[in-house]
Structure formats: structure tokens, C-alpha cells
């Protein structure tokens, strides 16, 4: 059970910084958070064949998304008017990505997520749309879900994202940690509204429940994460007074929805064996299975949270391969 040194440094650094930002009274030191967060600008000049640009997709909420694309082998850099040039392939997967951060941290332009999204573009030959959703505690449930839904509608209505094969946008929802949770809930809304989602990719998705599970007790404080901080983030996100059996964090719990017979997208769920909330993630997988949904579980026994942020371990490559297969299997 070993991690590369620089991964350990990276995750420990986040843990340390995050400890400074959460206040016992439930408020969050947003200014310090933004100061400490390492951000990168979008770049319309291709790097390794991938360029990016930001779009404000909802002026009212200042909802911004960062879009990553492959240059279609064109030598010149796209200017402002060419950024939304129609995709040229028969089938182009469009992955709507929700970054992690336990609903409170990070942004679409955080360096860790900009890097991850660029990797996804290369690996899946996809367009990636990274949603800069509103965060807790300033914006509680259901703001993040609303923003995800807005982004989904926006993506679905972009003609330039339509695959040539069927003039439709081939949409996948993906996210890590809180982003995984958001992906699930946006998929729910999509299903209810008749928007087709081809698949959900959940990396270490953030779920919880009122009871304390075995993994939570066993792994509390052992691998960067504590139950105490998990609780804090749920208190910050969930409506005031709600407990952790709220369907937002416990979709298959006592207040959850029954998905039997629902045309829910197939799911790829990645669970890290050293993540203390794995029992809830595994329960989620079980819940999908019981409802007759297609779900593939990728359980990485020796992985900690954040393993996918650096490409210096086998888990990273395993997961990227799986994601690539998951996204291309619809072609």
C-alpha cells in the first residue's frame, strides 16, 4: 500500500490546505481557497493537439464551462470564430465533466482538473466540457445539480457538437468525488426529460448515508480523509437540517428513487480500496444492479483518493483504459 512520493505530497498538500479553509461553524474561507488554488488559463493555442476555451453559458449565474477539443489535424491555431467549428468525425463523444472538491473546492480552471480533462480528450478522442458549477457552502443543494442540468441542455443544443452519423450530440457524464455525485443526479434529470445520456463515468464518487459503515470506521483518518471532514462537506452542501439520508448523498437510501424500469445510462464506477466511503460507493453500484441497470465496477484495492490526478501509477492507466473502452463501445 504505497503511493509515489509526489502523489503523497500533492494530496497531503491539498488536505493541509483544505483543513485551513473549513471553519468549525460551517463557513468556508473562500478568499484563501481561491488564493491557494492553482489555476491555469484556457488556451486556444493547441498543446499536444488539444486546445481549450471558456464559454459563459449562463450569464445570470455566471456559469462558465471550459471546453477542450482536438485540433482536427489543422496546422493553424483556431481564432475566436473557429473555436466552435463543427466536429468533423462520424462519432464524437462529448464528455460533460464535473470536477471534484467535495462540492466546496476547486474550479473548472484548477490546474489538476484542467490537466485531467486534457488527458480525457486525448484518451477518448472526445470533446470535454468541464462545468464550473456553483459550490457549497455559499450555494447549497441543488445549485450544483441545476448548473449541471443547464450545462447538459446547453451541450445537447449545440449543433457544432453533433456527430455526423446521426446529427445528435453523443453525451457522456463524468466526474470525480462530488462531480461523480453530480453526474448521477444530472443523469436522473436527463432521463426524466428525455435527453439521451450514453454513459456515466464516476470516479471515486461522493456518496454517504446516516449510518457509519465498516469502511468508514476502519479507514477514518488513515488515507488523507477523515469522517469529520466528510461530514462537514455534507453539512455544507445539503439543505439546512437535512441528514445524510437525503437522496442527494444517498440515492439508494430510505429516501432514494427507485430506478427499476428507468432508462438510466450505463455506468462505469471506479472505487479506490483505500477510500473510506467505499461502502457507500459499492452500495451505489448494488443499487444500480438491483434496479436492473448496466454498471461496471472497477475496484482498485490499493488506490487512494486522487490517484487519477497523476499518471505515475498503474491505477491511473488502468482507469484511463477502461474509460476509453467505455466511451468508444458505442461507436
Amino acid at each position, binding site marked *: 500500500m504505497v503511493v509515489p512520493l509526489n502523489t503523497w505530497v500533492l494530496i497531503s498538500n491539498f488536505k493541509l490546505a483544505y483543513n485551513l479553509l473549513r471553519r468549525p461553524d460551517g463557513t468556508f474561507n473562500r478568499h484563501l481557497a*481561491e488564493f491557494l488554488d492553482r489555476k491555469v488559463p484556457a488556451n486556444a493555442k493547441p498543446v499536444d493537439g488539444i486546445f481549450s476555451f471558456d464559454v459563459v453559458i449562463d450569464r445570470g449565474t455566471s456559469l462558465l464551462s471550459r471546453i477542450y477539443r482536438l485540433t482536427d489535424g489543422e496546422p493553424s491555431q483556431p481564432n475566436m470564430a473557429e473555436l466552435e467549428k463543427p466536429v468533423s468525425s462520424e462519432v464524437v463523444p462529448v464528455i460533460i465533466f464535473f470536477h471534484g472538491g467535495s462540492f466546496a473546492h476547486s474550479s473548472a480552471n484548477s490546474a489538476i482538473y484542467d490537466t485531467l480533462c486534457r488527458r480525457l480528450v486525448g484518451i477518448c478522442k472526445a470533446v470535454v466540457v468541464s462545468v464550473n458549477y456553483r459550490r457549497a457552502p455559499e450555494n447549497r443543494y441543488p445549485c450544483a445539480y441545476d448548473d449541471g442540468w443547464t450545462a447538459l441542455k446547453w451541450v445537447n443544443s449545440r449543433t457544432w457538437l453533433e456527430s455526423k452519423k446521426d446529427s445528435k450530440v453523443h453525451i457522456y457524464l463524468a466526474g470525480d468525488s462530488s462531480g461523480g455525485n453530480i453526474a448521477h443526479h444530472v443523469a436522473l434529470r436527463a432521463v426524466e426529460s428525455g435527453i439521451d445520456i450514453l454513459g456515466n463515468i464516476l470516479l471515486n464518487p461522493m456518496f454517504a448515508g446516516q449510518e457509519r459503515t465498516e469502511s468508514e470506521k476502519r479507514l477514518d483518518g488513515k488515507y488523507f480523509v477523515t469522517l469529520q471532514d466528510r461530514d462537514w462537506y455534507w453539512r455544507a452542501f445539503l439543505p439546512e437540517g437535512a441528514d445524510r439520508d437525503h437522496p442527494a448523498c444517498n440515492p439508494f437510501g430510505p429516501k432514494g428513487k427507485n430506478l427499476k424500469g428507468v432508462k438510466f445510462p450505463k455506468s462505469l464506477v471506479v472505487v479506490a480500496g483505500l477510500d473510506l466511503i467505499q461502502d457507500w460507493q459499492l452500495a451505489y453500484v448494488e443499487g444500480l444492479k438491483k434496479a436492473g441497470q448496466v454498471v461496471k465496477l472497477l475496484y482498485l484495492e490499493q488506490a487512494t483518493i486522487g490517484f487519477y490526478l497523476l499518471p505515475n501509477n498503474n491505477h491511473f492507466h488502468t482507469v484511463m483504459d477502461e474509460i476509453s473502452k467505455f466511451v468508444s463501445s458505442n461507436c
Partner: protein
Amino acid sequence: MKREHPNLHPRLDPASAGSSSSGYSTMPSVNTNTNDDTSCKAKMWEDDAQADGGMDELLAVLGYKVRSSDMVEVAQKLEQLQEVMGHVQEDGISHLACETVHYNPSDLSTWLESMLSELNPNPNFDSVVMPAQPSIDDSFFTHPESSTITSIDFADHTHQRHQEQRKTNKHSRDVVFEDSSSSDYDLKAIPGKSVFAQPHQIDSSSSSSRDPKRLKSATTDHLYPAAAAASSSSTIGAGAAGSFGVSTESTRPVVLVDSQENGIRLVHLLMACAEAVQENNLTVAEALVKQIGFLAISQAGAMRKVATYFAEALARRIYRLYPQSPMDHSLSDILQMHFYETCPYLKFAHFTANQAILEAFEGKKRVHVIDFSMNQGMQWPALLQALALRPGGPPAFRLTGIGPPSHDNSDHLQEVGWKLAQLAETIHVEFEYRGFVANSLADLDASMLELRPSEFESVAVNSVFELHKLLARPGAIEKVLSVVKQMKPEIVTIVEQEANHNDSVFLDRFTESLHYYSTLFDSLEGSVSTQDKVMSEVYLGKQICNIVACEGPDRIERHETLTQWRTRLGSSGFVPVHLGSNAFKQASMLLALFAGGDGYRVEENNGCLMLGWHTRPLIATSAWRLANKQVVAH
């Protein structure tokens, strides 16, 4: 600096228990597998790391500058902080979050060190609280299964690896610190923590520097832990200034707001026209410019205005109807004042520059500000007030304002000075003023400024959106920077547009500025006062015209990026003074007061602060001091 190199590999070190490592860092593991391949691979990784100036590439991409050779030390600091924070009361942590000023979080080692000092004020590191057992779960790092992953090894054979290190700890599970050739520790031994928040100014890079000779030349007895005003770039490799092993090529950040059909067509036309101009295909260009004019009318919002200004500039270039230069100064002052009111860019510039000046002037009794961008003197009332309120009372304040001659023979520089003098009197700040008229900053010589000895009077040089103009004439910027050095300033504050509008290729310049001003105009859309907005647009429109229609010495809006300025200032003998989380926070709060405040964002960038619209930085504030300046104690 010697790297620990062969000694790190336990296979080669008989005393150690472990064997192979496939280091993505340079640390060995304690696993018992002996694997020839992986240890060779380890060497390969290490060598790769060295080739990049030692920076861990993977972390660099994520925004953190950590040398591979420092990784262990950084890990140890993290561990230590975890341990200490675990023991400290909540107050201690909240102190770190609220009171402490943080600087340059990209430089992990220094940042961690500063927090350690906050929590462990004891300067003697022997008595620093050390865990008897490492706080991490041991099982995390021992019994590695996979031979492809390294571990942190805290067993006592560690000390054999650091053979050149002085301090070792005899207890078997204790974490060993790097020795004091990381001379930051030498400095820590000097007693006397500053009472005032004084930036920790040493002449070298952060604690990760291993060059004792360099550090010993610096003297400081102020150990404010939160800052390291060091130019790390000068030790790492000046060519890569600002980069952490990431490409130093320029980026083009774009924020689209309205992706309407006409907007895109307009941009297409503008680009086509610019290309035609570049190819000297003036008939085509002329036709396109007319088309743009028609199309622009039908467009709404920022895009229409931007397109109109760019089209006009293109037309001027095509028809050789170059704009008069320079513009009547009083008109440009008025325009600038409206710009000041409408949007936060100038206010941010003044605020952040003042913050740096205030900190640099801490404890000084007599101060002299030399302002290259005097205009209406809007920056100075706030600084005067802050100085008036400082504990211990205000310093004697001298201001030298430099500006171009006015067309109507009025002495506006003197008028501005007079108004400031009146303000100073009401708030009881001893005030002295001198206005200097100069066509160009390059006409200045230090001897003209009546500088007083630096032990007697501390100097700040301030330049807001002025330096780029000097790039229009060869030798001008070099002259000015050398004159600045002669002023022996405590601090030099520079605010510039965050864009490269000085490319020698016209089309590139055009494209960059089109993106930049589109974003800038977008940010103005939310303003309440129409008149202010229009004036601001005219103000910006003049810049657009200059960038697109002018050439040679007339083209003065030669904006360059922070990365470019860093390189230039670094090679001219200046080192950065970092702006911290306090300035960041207050600047962010200031933004909330502006309409459309939601879109304005402050970003921290290696000790500098940038203001942008959404995710696109538009202006950058940086602060500098002389590389060989000694910090004077008092």
C-alpha cells in the same frame, strides 16, 4: 550542489535494509524485492528530473514548484505540519487561516516552512516539535507490494543517505531534516522575529536552495515567516522564467460570452481583413472593412463595439490616416477617469500597488514615491490615508510625479500635487511634492530627482500602464530600468496589461488584441452608467487604434505579458517581492463593489496578482526590489 544520488539507492548502500525503487522521486523503498530493472529505471527518472532543472514535472503541470531532490523534505514538512496541527488548538489553525499572510503557494517548500514557523515560533530547529513516531500510518509506507512504486522511508538508515547532512536524529523513527546547507535553517537560528509584518527578504531562492555561499551574502534579521521574496527563477534557469518545466510559449486564453451567429461572422471578417492587410492586399482589405462596418451595425453588445473599433483601426491602416499622436493629455485624463469609475481595473492596479508599497514602507520614517504614471494622482489619496492611520504614525511623505507636457500650457502636474498637499494637510501627513514634465520616461536621470540617501529616505517607484510604452524606442526600457536602479528603491510596483500586443507579426498582434479587448469590453457591459461606459470604451478604443494602425515609435501600446516582464526585470537585476493573501483578499472584496462583480476574478500567480474577467487575466500587478539590496534592520 551535490545531489544525493548514488547513496540513495539502497542496493548500493549495504547498510540499508531495503532495495529497489522505481523512483518517480529519488527515494528508495524498504521493500525486499531486488529488481535490477526498476533500480535502473530509478536512475533514469532521477536523471530526467535533473535535466529539467530538477523540478518535478508532474507537480509542475499542476502548479507546484518542487524540486525532485526536495520532495522528501517537502513530505517531511507536510508530515510535521500535520502532526503539529493535530496538537495545536483550533485557535492555532484558525490563526493560520485568518491572521497569517500566505505567499506564493506554488513554492510548496517555502509555504510549508512559513506555516511551520507560525506554529513553532522557536527559532532553534533542534527543539522544533518533532514527532517521536511519524504521524502517518506506518503501514502506509512499509510492505510495499508493487515494485513499481516508491515509498517514504523513515527508518534510521536514512541518515546514511544524507551523508553530507549535518543534523541527524538518533531515534530510529524520527524524521530527519535536511541539513543547514539549506541555509534557511541557518537564518532561522538568528533570533528576533519581526514584530511588524516584514517580508522575509533573502537574496536567494527559497529554502530549497543549497548554495550556502549565496545565502551568506544576504543579511536579514527579520524572519517574518510567511514570505520569501526570492527570485527562484534566477537559480533555476532564467530562460524558463515563470515556467515550471511547462511550455513557456504564450497561451491564448479565450472567454466567449455571446456565441451569436453574427458575432462569429464579424470575427471571421475581421481576421480576413487583417490577413489581407498583412499580405498588403489593400483592395481586398478595403472591401472587407466596409463589409465589417455594415455587419457591425446589426450586432448587439460588446461585439459590435469591439468590431467597430478594430474596423476603424484597420481602415486607418489601409488608408494611412494615422491617428494623431500623442493625444491631448487632458482629454486622455478625462477618459481615464471614467474608465476608473466604470470598472475595477485601475482601482485594482492602485490598490495592489499601494499594498506592496505600504508593506515595503513599514517602519520607515521618511518615504519618497516616484510615480511614473501621475495622471490625476488618483492612486495617492488612498496611500496617504493608509499611512496616516498606521500604528506609530505616518512617515514624512514625498511624492515626485512624472507626466507628459500638457498642450494648453497649464501646469496640471502642479495642480494635482497641490490637491494632494491639501489632503495631506487635513490628515496630518507631512507632504512634499515635485512634478516633473517629460516627453518620455527615458529622458529622466536620477540626478534630476534630488534623491536623498537611502538610509534617510526610502524610495518606491510606481508605474501603472507606463512601462510598455518604452518598448517603442530601442534602449529606452533599459535606460529607465537602470535609472530606477540608481534610485535604490525599496520597492518597484508595476502594473501592466496581461497580453502580448507587441508581436512583430501584425496578424498575431491583431488576433491577440482582438481576443483581449473582446473580453475587456464584455466586462464593461454590466456597468450602470452609460456615459461612463461610453467614455471607457473610447479610452480603450484609442489603445486598439494604436496597436492596429500605428507602427514604429508611434506604436506605444506595446503590451507584454507578466512572463515577459519577469524575464526582462530578472535579467536587469530585479527580484520579485511577493504579494500575499491579504492583498488578494482585499482586492477580491473590492471587486464585489463593482457591477458585474461576479465576473471579476483575482488570481495569484507566483507572487503576483492578476485581475481578470472570468478566467481570463487582463492586468497583472507585480512588485520588485534590487537583487543585491540588503534589507536594512531597524
